[in-house]
């Protein structure tokens, strides 16, 4: 079951993946079996994705993360919130993160 993601969700990178930063991109490499459908192609995070990923510490909720990013990048908070929830939903589906 994929947990439904809201702005109150608190997430952390799964222990079952390895995240590597290569030439500025974050690439997620599955470690254990059954992580998404990534047998051969790896999941890459874009710049926004990377900023979100680096803030997934199992403490801050998504609202806090989005607010922080909106301030930092001087962007509309609703838009960032939408992007954050969207990305986290995908990461949760692929079991790349754990949701508390």
């Amino acid at each position, binding site marked *: 079951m994929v947990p439904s993601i809201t702005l109150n969700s608190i997430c952390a990178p799964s222990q079952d993946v*390895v995240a*590597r930063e290569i030439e500025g991109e974050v690439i997620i*490499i599955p*470690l*254990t*079996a059954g992580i998404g459908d*990534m047998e*051969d192609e790896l999941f890459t995070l874009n710049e926004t994705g990377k900023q979100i990923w680096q803030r997934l510490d199992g403490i801050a909720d998504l609202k806090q993360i989005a607010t922080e990013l909106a301030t930092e990048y001087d962007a509309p908070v609703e838009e960032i919130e939408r992007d954050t929830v969207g990305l986290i939903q995908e990461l949760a589906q692929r079991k790349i993160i754990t949701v508390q």
Partner: protein
Amino acid sequence: MTERCNNACLHCYINLPKDDPTAIARELSTDRWKNILQQAADLGALTVRFTGGEPLLRDDFSELYLFARRLGLRVMLFTNARLITPELADLFVQIPPLKKIEISVYGMRPESYDAVAARPGAFAEFKRGIELLDDRKIAYVIKTALLPQNSDDLEALEEWVARNPWMNGDPALSCYFDLRARRDSIAKNELIRSLRISPEKSLVLLARREAVYRKEMAGFCAKFCQPSGDLLFNCGAGKSGCVDAYGKYQMCLMLRHPQTVFDLAKGSLREALTEFFPRLRELKATNPDYLQRCAQCFLYGLCEQCPAKSWAEHGTLDTPVDYFCQIAHAQARFLGLLKSDEMAWEVKDWGQRIDSLAKS
């Protein structure tokens, strides 16, 4: 990871006996390997290949495998499958390599397999290894070497491959065997020479699926066939490379010429990749025979000639290897790229010929 192997395949260019004390004493320690893997990951490598000899002969194989996977490296394992145990197969399920395991198969019957591997009982162990993978649905692909001892097995092998869900197309088939990469045995080289397929027989093999072969080659030649000039390295050698069992970093899996390897006890992967190999990649051929033939030959892309083969065969980097030359010429004649009395390096209108092959 090791040049030792539990098989003693007749055609092999590298294998040493599995208990070879000198090889064991010289091989890198677990910590040295970990350090090299760490360097590779720090450089942004995404995949490492564990090969040998037989890499599963290393007692620390699982430890190094796990270490690499935890660094976020995908592992491409080349093995003969004989040493796969239930525990190892379980590990591949739990922590998948993320690359299909590549298994070399030397026959489909005990008589043929054991004759090629020169180890009685080897076939039974190979079968067991395969069963362990099959039971767990672990992805693997099959490669084979075709020798007189196992040539009757080709059909059975192809039938087996056709049922393999992880393969599309025929198994990679080697029959143009390389000589010993360490130039360590005249006797073994003689044996390897005697096992090489003749140019005529190689055509019979290719003609089994003539239409497909012609079509593939038309595309291939259009892309890769042209004279290479006097530059020695026209391939990817030295862009990623290969660390041998003793910590010498080679430009490619094959090339062991002492002047082209970088000692990792004295420097890093990065230094080799950014300083040492790029200098070597600028090397030019000086052998007049090479300059007259290979440098001007439009079959260069089709032919197996390269510095590594030249080294294994002649101990130099730029000597044409007659066997590969004959094979390339036979193929080119079969494809209609050459007339029977022509030598490829003399042909000037090669571009037109490749065009007409594409249209035919």
